């Protein structure tokens, strides 16, 4: 049963991963025979590469805004869809669509058209008398915002997970709350939210990992510009590997990212005792 999976895992995953550890310790440039240079690539990233820090900064800002916004939005829509409406199935599908197509090239190009110079956003604002010289994508202060907005818009998969979790919350809890005359806000903070914490935790980890991996948007919409203000970490890694022929260094960057994501995950797991509520565990 597991054989095909195992085969794929080892061949497409494990072996490349191990090889990339080796490459990260060499001066491999895709074309040469790699020679071992120890930790030079790692040292170079931390001590001699301003663009590395810039890419790291951009990605951290992206993750710190994207994840809470996306989760809040996903939960909000999930709660709306948890009611009984006509055509609910249709809405669920509609809200999920951005997540399927959101990371695609086509949508990225559409966003570029909307927020670029003389795009829809600029024209609309102009109609309201707000004239801008530069577009949102051409402004170093707002370009990343556009990219984050596009990320938030792809809230569908978190929403579906929230929706199924909402359905799991026993109706009896809400009934007794109603009997006690609890206000909706109180019901939300005292019942819904605590019951959802395992799901929030799960979504949080998933979205943080996803957030650090942002690539398509910054590659297609802005190509990292203007002035590297949207240069995501993975895009920089890609450039290093395939445009600058700096594969060894790029592999080192990849492993630094693995370490960063690892630290986040471990820290989150450590904190979960204080805020994540598992039904079976306590009591």
């Amino acid at each position, binding site marked *: 049963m597991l054989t095909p999976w195992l085969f794929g895992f080892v061949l497409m995953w494990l072996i490349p991963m191990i090889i990339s550890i080796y490459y990260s310790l060499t001066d491999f440039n*895709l074309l040469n025979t790699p020679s071992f240079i120890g930790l030079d690539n790692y040292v170079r990233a931390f001590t001699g590469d301003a663009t590395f820090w810039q890419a790291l900064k951009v990605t951290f800002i992206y993750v710190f805004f994207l994840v809470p916004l996306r989760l809040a939005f996903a939960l909000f829509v999930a709660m709306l869809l948890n009611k009984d409406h006509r055509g609910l199935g249709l809405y669920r599908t509609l809200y999920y669509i951005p997540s399927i197509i959101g990371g695609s090239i086509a949508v990225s190009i559409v966003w570029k058209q909307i927020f*670029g*110079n*003389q795009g829809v956003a600029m024209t609309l604002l102009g109609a309201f008398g707000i004239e801008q010289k530069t577009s949102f*994508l051409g*402004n170093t202060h707002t370009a990343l915002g556009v990219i984050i907005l596009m990320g938030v818009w792809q809230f569908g998969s978190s929403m579906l997970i929230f929706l199924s979790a909402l359905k799991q919350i026993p109706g009896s809890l809400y009934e007794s709350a109603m009997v006690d005359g609890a206000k909706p806000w109180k019901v939300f903070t005292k019942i819904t939210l605590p019951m959802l914490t395992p799901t929030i935790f799960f979504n949080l980890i998933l979205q943080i990992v996803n957030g650090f991996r942002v690539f398509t948007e910054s590659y297609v919409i802005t190509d990292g510009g203007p002035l*590297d203000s949207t240069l995501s970490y993975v895009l920089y890694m890609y450039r290093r590997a*395939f*445009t600058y*022929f700096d594969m060894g260094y790029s592999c080192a960057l990849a492993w630094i990212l693995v370490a960063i994501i690892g630290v986040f995950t471990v820290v989150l797991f450590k904190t979960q005792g204080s805020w994540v509520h598992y039904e079976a565990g306590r009591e």
Partner: protein
Amino acid sequence: MKRHEKFKRILPAALAGVMVLSMAGCGSDGKTGDAASGDAQPAAAGTDGTQAADVPADDQASADGENVVIKMTWWGGQTRHDQTQAVCDLYTSLHPNVTFELSPSGWDGYFDKLSTQTASGSMPDIVQMDYLYLTTYAKNNSLADLQEFIDNGTIDVSGIDENLLQTGSVDGKMAAMVLSTSLLNVGYNPAVLQEAGVEEPTSDWTWNDFVAMCETIQSKTDKYGVSMDSVADTNIFNYWVRQQGGSLFSDDNKSLGYEDDKVFVDFVTMWNDLMGKEAMPDPDEYAQIATLGQEAGPVVTGDAGAIIEWNNYASKVSTVNDSIKMVTPPLAEGSDTKGLWMKPGMFFAIAEKSTVKQEAAEFINWFINSDEANDIMMAERGTPVSSAVRQHLIDSGNLGEQQIAMFEGVEAAAALCGETPAPDPAGISEVNEAFKKAANSVYYGQASAEDAAAAFREEANAILARNN
């Protein structure tokens, strides 16, 4: 390592063996086909000791007219894809034992893919190469030395200008064969110039004339005087540096070649002023213009006056607007240093790992020198390198007005051309990125030109020192 090398040598041989066996069954037309083409084979490298390992296999293949498949890749637009396909079909009909496996591509992503293929040992046999990456590939021994095919007469270079031919040479190795020449030019839309009441430029104009023209167009017509990305790569800057008597890179490629940052400051300031006067799109505006594609660009549609481009620009957009004219780029004020150079347009290189080098070299020779191949391609890749072919194309009467102007422009510009600079150093794409960033920081008003110049110098020197 040893074992690895050995394996690498055995694998192609084993594969070739399998191919030979599988073809033996159905090879009868292949044999007759080869009898016809066999006489064209020069006495191959059998006597040449350096190639000992591969020679027996190759030799036999050509001698027996064994069927061979040549894998080939290039970048370009649809026109080039169609033409190259037709040329290859024609070659197959002349040499039935040679068939092709073609992978056309756009410029975007072409070199990303090529680097991956090369890393995995599956570089196509014939690769269209750009000056930008030639050094990188040559230095890493990914490209075959074509000198032996020139020496043994497979590739005839007698019609090619010696300086131009040498542009394919890296560290004493003929890493690639140049296919065409190009020159920096200014393309302009005469209608826009006329509307603004500006005289059409002549080849003795200067940068001051250029700036004045752009500003006049803007003030008279409210159109862009010039519409382009001035810092998309370092070619225009290279021209500028050469006009000041410097060179962009030092001889050893380990640092920038010009001493005084004023060169950079003046360059960026000129463009920045044009942007400030709305005579040129700023990077933000240009990002949107670029999405239109060249054929729908403002110069073509009559919404801008001029553009600095390669000299095949007018010919390239002639399907949309056939009135675009070209002129040599502006001269430096009060200096007669020859900044212009004949840039090798593009190259064909043969993969070092190719098992069909001889056949590939024969094809390249035919591609460059034969009338019938060039009749199909019609100089789409730029002015052909072979003087005989150029003459043939002019005589054939099939060239369009823009193409004839391009051919004549090359002859006329020769007087303005200095020595062709060495191929771009390894790390050039990173240098270009640093250059773009430094210049854009000025265009976005986030740095002074002086600071940007210093930042570019520091970054570029670090990149060049690391790569060369």
